[in-house]
């Protein structure tokens, strides 16, 4: 949450429609994602009640557990879900691609694409995690035998849920997270967890404002909750009776069958609206161009997928119940770095996201007003090409002399700050685009402050002309800055720069301290050296018989 996104929310309230906070899509969207809408029975740990699942909006498969407390029925459900999910996942085994070798890495192969599972909200990711946990230890033989696909399902679900914790991973996504990443609604973040309300703001039906559509989306009778929890009035007035009807002794197979059909119909009506919302969200996101770093992050997902598939083929044991102390600490450290890296990547891809960093002083942008492309630095043994440019900005960067910056549009070039000084006043806000007369340093006319415009509730930023009049007093208090930068790299190997490799006057550039470069893993002791304060070296995880027979009541 930053001032920019909060301002966007305020704008959403005023305009009645959600406002974009990104100009591009920052998640990978598969051509064929698997959408899963789960429901659970209230009061239990994770008792599945129903699921609507599929990769085709016109053909979702509805799975229902008509006796949710019956252990056999649950595993039957898991087996059916396994059939769908595992075959979807393994469908991606069929094509591979070659990854060229790089620094210290040989050429290798990985799967050409990876599965992508989409669920409505973070609580459904929790469902996936718990279902994975309750199924991955089961065995196809012995006293508590289950269908052989069930433990495979469990391992894949646990893998997906674990990946979902990695910032920037797109193998398992919650629709509310993704939509809220790209749009600011006119409500609070907690209300954004309701997919119907959020989509109401972002994509209201014709004739309704976002606020009206969101309010409609909160009515559980017309828009059932996206799950996994059901609405209590549905449970009490509809579901309880339908489930009881399926519990009666089956002397009358037809009556029983009718009861099951009735239950299926009622549950279908609970998940179908969410299903449609999910596919609408997918369509919305498909309409946005992807950021340039999305593909590289998806490559990392493909690597993880390939690696886990290999592990499964080699009969690796299921994921242990809990991290060892070292693994937990490593994970936290990794998560922090990954979060920062993901945020930086989005900023480097997307000017609107970068704008947040311009506001916080970690970046600035503006036109180049002067350039010395041929400047050489003769101070060392060899002469080096070190052009100078001057960038004028109305931002307020907090950068020190000597700091190293990079520009998203020139990633292989470093820029060192030589000086930051006040620049002459500009007659209006600087805009990317061709230089306006008066934006080249000269003596611009001082602007006369005019009468303030009457306050208009829906006005955001007035047009440039009136901005001059109304906001001149404030602008006068904050002069633009001129930043002189010394450039290195990205210009070829000669002492004269290759054409186009040095920014020219008039070019609009952004410079920032943010980087997304790889950082080495924080150093942690080897597993075997776990300090005694953390319980000593952890025992090797060996799946136990008791895991297979663990109660699921």
């Amino acid at each position: 949450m930053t001032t920019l996104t909060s301002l966007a929310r305020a704008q959403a309230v005023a305009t009645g429609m959600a406002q974009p906070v990104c100009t591009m899509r920052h998640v990978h969207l598969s051509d064929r994602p698997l959408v899963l809408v789960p429901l659970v029975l209230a009061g239990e740990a994770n008792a599945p009640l129903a699921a609507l699942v599929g990769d085709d909006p016109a053909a979702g498969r509805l799975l229902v557990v008509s006796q949710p407390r019956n252990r056999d029925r649950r595993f039957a459900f898991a087996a059916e879900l396994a059939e769908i999910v595992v075959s979807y996942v393994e469908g991606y085994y069929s094509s591979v691609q070659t990854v060229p070798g790089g620094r210290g890495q040989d050429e290798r192969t990985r799967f050409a694409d990876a599965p992508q599972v989409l669920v409505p909200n973070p609580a459904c990711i929790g469902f996936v995690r718990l279902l994975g946990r309750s199924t991955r230890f089961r065995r196809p033989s012995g006293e508590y035998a289950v269908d052989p696909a069930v433990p495979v399902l469990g391992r894949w679900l646990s893998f997906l849920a674990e990946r979902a914790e990695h910032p920037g991973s797109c193998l398992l996504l919650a629709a509310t997270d993704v939509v809220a990443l790209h749009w600011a609604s006119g409500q609070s973040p907690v209300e954004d967890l309701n997919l119907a309300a959020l989509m109401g703001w972002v994509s209201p039906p014709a004739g309704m404002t976002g606020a009206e559509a969101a309010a409609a989306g909160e009515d559980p009778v017309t828009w059932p909750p996206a799950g996994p929890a059901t609405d209590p009035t549905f449970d009490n007035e509809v579901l309880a009776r339908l489930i009881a009807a399926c519990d009666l002794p089956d002397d009358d197979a037809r009556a029983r069958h009718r009861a099951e059909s009735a239950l299926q119909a009622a549950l279908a009506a609970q998940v179908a609206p969410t299903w449609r919302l999910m596919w609408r969200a997918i369509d919305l996101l498909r309409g946005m161009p992807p950021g340039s770093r999305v593909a590289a992050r998806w490559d990392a997902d493909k690597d993880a997928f390939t690696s886990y598939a290999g592990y499964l083929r080699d009969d690796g044991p299921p994921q242990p119940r809990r991290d060892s102390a070292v693994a937990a600490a490593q994970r936290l450290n990794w998560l922090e770095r990954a979060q920062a890296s993901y945020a930086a990547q989005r900023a480097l891809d997307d000017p609107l996201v970068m704008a947040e960093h311009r506001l916080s002083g970690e970046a600035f942008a503006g036109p180049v007003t002067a350039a010395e492309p041929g400047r050489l630095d003769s101070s060392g043994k060899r002469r080096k090409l070190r052009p100078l440019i001057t960038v004028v900005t109305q931002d307020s960067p907090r950068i020190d002399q000597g700091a190293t910056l990079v520009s998203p549009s020139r990633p292989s070039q470093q820029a060192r700050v030589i000086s930051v000084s006040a620049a002459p006043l500009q007659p209006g806000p600087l805009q990317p685009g061709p230089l306006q007369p008066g934006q080249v340093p000269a003596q611009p006319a001082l602007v006369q402050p005019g009468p303030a415009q009457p306050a208009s509730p829906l006005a955001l930023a007035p047009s440039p002309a009136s901005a001059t009049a109304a906001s001149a007093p404030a602008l006068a208090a904050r002069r633009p800055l001129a930043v002189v930068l010394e450039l290195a790299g990205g210009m070829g190997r000669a002492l004269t720069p290759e054409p186009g490799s040095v920014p020219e006057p008039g070019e609009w550039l952004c410079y920032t301290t943010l980087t997304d470069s790889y950082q080495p893993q924080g150093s942690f002791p080897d597993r075997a050296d776990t300090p005694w304060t953390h319980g000593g070296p952890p025992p090797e995880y060996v799946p136990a018989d008791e895991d297979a027979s663990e109660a699921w009541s």
Partner: protein
Amino acid sequence: MESLERRLGELRAEVRRAAASRDAARVRALRAELRNAERDWDDALARLEDRQLAPGDAATSRAPLRTQPDGSGVAVVAGGAATAPGGGPLPPARLAAAPADGPLLPLREQVHQALTLLDVPTAPKLLSAVHDAFFAGEIPSARLTSLRRDEERSFRSAPFARPYYLCAALTAELLAPARGLLAVSTWPMDRRVIGPLSPRVNYLSAAIRVAESFLRIPGPGPAAQRLLWRFAANIPGAADGTRAMDPALVARAARAELEVHADDDRQTRAAAAARARRQLDDAEQLFGSRLQAVPQAGASGE
């Protein structure tokens, strides 16, 4: 059919809205209407199936595929949740028990059987589990809730007419009926009172009796094993760490803990029993004193 479904959907929505707005009267009325609509729908569906079935068709034909009520065209393909994996029969809801000999006994006889085995006042759930484990037929514990009241009525109308009554156990403090416990009238008074230590003492005694019964019957079934296992889990030293269960060990462990509490418990109960015999009439000794609490002298505290 479609209009019935639509009505059903509308009624469901209305009931839910009324329930959410805490309008109790409206909820009741709407629920009744909803029941009727459900019944009508079910009957209509049954008639529809009758017409669709040709003679000789298997009785397990599927109901027609349902599209969404708003006709949005999302085709939902119902998964095969109606059959167990492998297409076998559904797990039966109840195990049919074969009677050991002759017809099943009436409920009070079944309860008497179980109580006699345990020999201590017991709650319905445990009684039901014990009966399941060692006798033919089942007692659903829900049917036991009104049993005490029925027995009291029967006694009051014709005292001591029956050879035994299923009665209450009395709290030592107030000689009031202890909640949720059943006892047998022919037991001595001091076995029918409950002091603070008695719930645990009775539990341990019950464990011993169950373990002994376990050893006596040939081929104890899974219900008996589950019952014994539950006792073993809650008595220190009764389970030896492996999954195998030793009834003799359970009994030994129960006796060992019983030693700790037995004397104190016996004293409390003896004193309470004496008071009961002194102060209560026949019906009250069996079913407890309800109208006036008869506290122990000097125990009223602040």
